[in-house]
C-alpha cells in the first residue's frame, strides 16, 4: 500500500472522501474526516517529487498523467488545500451530508485538475468541479437558487465542452496533450481552450454566472465556491497562455468594470462576487505580461486572494446565518453583537484593499510593478483606478454598511465558534504572509512558494525570456505610494459621505449582461417553444394530408385497378413510353 501513496493525486483522494462523506450519517465523524483530509493531502503534496509524472495510465490510446507537481501547480494546490481545510471548519455547525461531501469533492476536483499533467485529465476534473459545485447552490433550497444553479451548470458544462473540443484539435495536430503553453492563437485548438478557460475565469461578458450563482448559494456554499472554480481557471491560463498580450487588456477591463456595479449593488454577497471579478482581472493582466515577476504576481495574488476572499465571504456568511439577510439596506450596527466577526471582516477588507502589512499588498505590488516596468501606462492607470475601487466596495462598503453605519437594530448572537475559528485562522494567514520579514516570519513565506524563484522554476517562467530577479515589496516608495492612494481614497469617502454625495443603498436588482439571456434570450426561447408547440401539430397535419393525397394519386394511376392498368398497353402506356424516350434523348442531347 505504501508505495502507492506518493503516486496518489491528493485531489483524487479528496474527491473520494467527499463521495464517502455524502453517505456518512454521523455528523462528528464526517466532519472530523473532512477536516483531517486536507491536512493529510497537504502532507502528500509537500512530499511529492517535482517535475516528474508521478502517476500515469494508458487508456483510449491516450497517455494520461494523473499527478504531476511543479512550482506553479504547487502554490495553487496548496492554497486550495488550505481553503478546503478552513471551509471544513467553517461548515461544522451544520449537519448536511450532501453539502459537506460535495464541498470536499469540489475542492478535490479543483486540486486534482491543478495537479493534472495533461489536458484530458484536466478536462475530466474540470467537469467534476462543475457537477459537484452545483449542489452548493442547489442546497440553498430557494426557487431563485434552483434556477441560478441550472444556468450555472449549463455554462460550466459548456466550458468543459469547449475544452474537450479544443483538446481534440490539439490531439489531432500532434497527439501531444501535455500542458505545454501555447505560443499563438494560430495553433489548433488554442482558441477553443482559451474560451473554455475564459468562461471559468469570468471574463467580461462571460462573467455573469458568477454574480448570478454565488450570492444565491448556501451560507457555506458561497464560501466554498469563492475559492476554487475561478482560481483553477487562473492557474490554467498561467499554464497555457502566459504572455498573451490580449490578456493584459482583458484583465485591465476586468478590474475596472465590476467597480461600478459593486458600488450600486445592495446584496453584499453579490458585491463580493463583483469584487472577485475585479481581483481576477489583476491576475489575468499579470499572466498577459508573462514575465517571471508577473507570473509570481498572479500566483501570489491568487494565493492571498483565496484566503482573504474566503474570509470576507465567511464574515458575510456569518451575518447571513445570524441575521437572515446580507442586504446593505437592512444591515448596520452589527459590531454591537458580532464584534469578533467585525474584526475578522476588517482584516479581510484591509487585505483585499492591499494595505501595507496585509497579504494583498505584498501580492498586488508584484503585478503593479510588472505592469509598470512593462511600459503599459494606460493599463497601469486602470489597475490603479481599480485598486481604489476595491477599497470602495470591499474595503469600506462591506464592513461599513454591515457592522457600522446606520444601526438597523439587529441584536443577534455572535457567529458560532467554528465560524469564528475559521475566520480567525484565515485572518491570521492574511497578516502572517503580509508582514515585513521579522525573525523568519512575514511575506517571505508566501514568496518562498512562488512559481518563479531561484530555487524553483516552472516552465512558464521561461516563456518570456526574462531573468528571474528577487522582488522587495517593502520599499519606502511602495509603502508611501500605496498609502497615498488608500488614505486619500478614504478621505474622498468621508467627504462625499458628509456632503451627501455618496449614493444611498437602495434595494433592487441591478441589471448586468445576464439580462440579455435572462430576459430577451429566455423570451425568445419561450416564444420559439410556444410557436413550435402550435406549429408542430400543424406541420404534422399538413404533411399527413400531402402524403395521403400523393398516395391516392399514385394509386389511382399505377395500382392494378388504376388508370394505366385499365387502358391497356396500346394507348396510355405507349404514350408514356414515348414521352420517357423523348425526355432521355433531350437529356443526352444537352448533356452531350
Amino acid at each position: 500500500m505504501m508505495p502507492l501513496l506518493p503516486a496518489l493525486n491528493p485531489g483524487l483522494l479528496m474527491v473520494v472522501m467527499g463521495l464517502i462523506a455524502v453517505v456518512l450519517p454521523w455528523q462528528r465523524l464526517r466532519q472530523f474526516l473532512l477536516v483531517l483530509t486536507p491536512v493529510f493531502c497537504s502532507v502528500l503534496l509537500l512530499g511529492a517529487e517535482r517535475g516528474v509524472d508521478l502517476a500515469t495510465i494508458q487508456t483510449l490510446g491516450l497517455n494520461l498523467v494523473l499527478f504531476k507537481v511543479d512550482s506553479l501547480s504547487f502554490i495553487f494546490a496548496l492554497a486550495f488545500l488550505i481553503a478546503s481545510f478552513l471551509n471544513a471548519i467553517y461548515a461544522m455547525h451544520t449537519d448536511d451530508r450532501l453539502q459537506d461531501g460535495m464541498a470536499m469533492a469540489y475542492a478535490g476536483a479543483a486540486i486534482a485538475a491543478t495537479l493534472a499533467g495533461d489536458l484530458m485529465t484536466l478536462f475530466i476534473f474540470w467537469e467534476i468541479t462543475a457537477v459537484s459545485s452545483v449542489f452548493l447552490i442547489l442546497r440553498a433550497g430557494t426557487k431563485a437558487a434552483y434556477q441560478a444553479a441550472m444556468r450555472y451548470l449549463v455554462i460550466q458544462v459548456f466550458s468543459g465542452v469547449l475544452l474537450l473540443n479544443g483538446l481534440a484539435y490539439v490531439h489531432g495536430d500532434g497527439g501531444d496533450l501535455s500542458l505545454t503553453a501555447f505560443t499563438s492563437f494560430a495553433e489548433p485548438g488554442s482558441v477553443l481552450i482559451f474560451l473554455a478557460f475564459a468562461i471559468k475565469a469570468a471574463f467580461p461578458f462571460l462573467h455573469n454566472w458568477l454574480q448570478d450563482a454565488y450570492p444565491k448559494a448556501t451560507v457555506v456554499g458561497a464560501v466554498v465556491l469563492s475559492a476554487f472554480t475561478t482560481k483553477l481557471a487562473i492557474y490554467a491560463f498561467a499554464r497555457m497562455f502566459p504572455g498573451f498580450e490580449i490578456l493584459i487588456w482583458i484583465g485591465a477591463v476586468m478590474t475596472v468594470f465590476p467597480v461600478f456595479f459593486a458600488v450600486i449593488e445592495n446584496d453584499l454577497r453579490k458585491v463580493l462576487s463583483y469584487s472577485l471579478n475585479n481581483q481576477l482581472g489583476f491576475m489575468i493582466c499579470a499572466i498577459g505580461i508573462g514575465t517571471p515577476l508577473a507570473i509570481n504576481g498572479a500566483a501570489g495574488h491568487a494565493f492571498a486572494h483565496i484566503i482573504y476572499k474566503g474570509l470576507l465571504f465567511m464574515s458575510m456568511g456569518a451575518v447571513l446565518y445570524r441575521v437572515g439577510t446580507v442586504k446593505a439596506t437592512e444591515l448596520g450596527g452589527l459590531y454591537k453583537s458580532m464584534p469578533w466577526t467585525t474584526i475578522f471582516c476588517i482584516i479581510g477588507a484591509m487585505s483585499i484593499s492591499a494595505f501595507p502589512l496585509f497579504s494583498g499588498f505584498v501580492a498586488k505590488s508584484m503585478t503593479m510593478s510588472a505592469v509598470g516596468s512593462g511600459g503599459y501606462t494606460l493599463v497601469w492607470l486602470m489597475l490603479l483606478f481599480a485598486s481604489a475601487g476595491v477599497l470602495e466596495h470591499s474595503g469600506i462598503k462591506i464592513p461599513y454598511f454591515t457592522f457600522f453605519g446606520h444601526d438597523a437594530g439587529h441584536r443577534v448572537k455572535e457567529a458560532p465558534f467554528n465560524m469564528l475559528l475559521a475566520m480567525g485562522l484565515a485572518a491570521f494567514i492574511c497578516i502572517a504572509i503580509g508582514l515585513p520579514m521579522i525573525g523568519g516570519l512575514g511575506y517571505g513565506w508566501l514568496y518562498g512558494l512562488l512559481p518563479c524563484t531561484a530555487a524553483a522554476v516552472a516552465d512558464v517562467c521561461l516563456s518570456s525570456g526574462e531573468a528571474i530577479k528577487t522582488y522587495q515589496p517593502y520599499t519606502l516608495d511602495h509603502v508611501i505610494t500605496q498609502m497615498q492612494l488608500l488614505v486619500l481614497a478614504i478621505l474622498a469617502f468621508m467627504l462625499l459621505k458628509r456632503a451627501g454625495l455618496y449614493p444611498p443603498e437602495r434595494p433592487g436588482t441591478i441589471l448586468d449582461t445576464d439580462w440579455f439571456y435572462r430576459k430577451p434570450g429566455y423570451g425568445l426561447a419561450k416564444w420559439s417553444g410556444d410557436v413550435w408547440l402550435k406549429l408542430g401539430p400543424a406541420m404534422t397535419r399538413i404533411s399527413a394530408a400531402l402524403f395521403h393525397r400523393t398516395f391516392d394519386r399514385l394509386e389511382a394511376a399505377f395500382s392494378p385497378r388504376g388508370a394505366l392498368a385499365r387502358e391497356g398497353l396500346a394507348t396510355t402506356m405507349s404514350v408514356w413510353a414515348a414521352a420517357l424516350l423523348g425526355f432521355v434523348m433531350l437529356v443526352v442531347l444537352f448533356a452531350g
Partner: protein
Amino acid sequence: MSTAPERDENGRFVKADRKAGSPVTPGGEHPLSKVLFGWVENKRTPNLLLLAVSVLSVFLILLDFVLHRHDYISFAETGGFYAFWGFGAFALAVLAGWPLGHLLRRGEDYYGEADTRPFDTEAEE
C-alpha cells in the same frame, strides 16, 4: 438540521412568513463590543476621524516633496500623483453610482427572485 417542509391540507408547501431581516436569535450586545468599538459611538469620533485622515493625507502628500520617489512610469513621480489618483478614482466610482443606479436598478423581484435566503440560516427557525 432541515426538517420536512410543512404542507397544508391540499399538499401544497406552506410558505413561511419571511420578514426580511428580523433577528431570530436574540443576542443583545456582545460584552466585547464596548471594549473594542465603544469609541465608535462617541459623538466626536466622526470629526476626529476626519481630522486624523486629513492630517495623514497632507503628511503623505508632503512626503512626496521631501523624498524623491522613483517610479516605472515617469509622470507618477510627480508629487502627490498617487494621492490625486486615489481621491479622483474613488470619487468617480462613487459618483458614477448615481446615474448608473437610475439606469440599471430595477425592482427586487425583477427576475422573480426576491427571496434568496438560503435554507442554512438560523433566521427561519
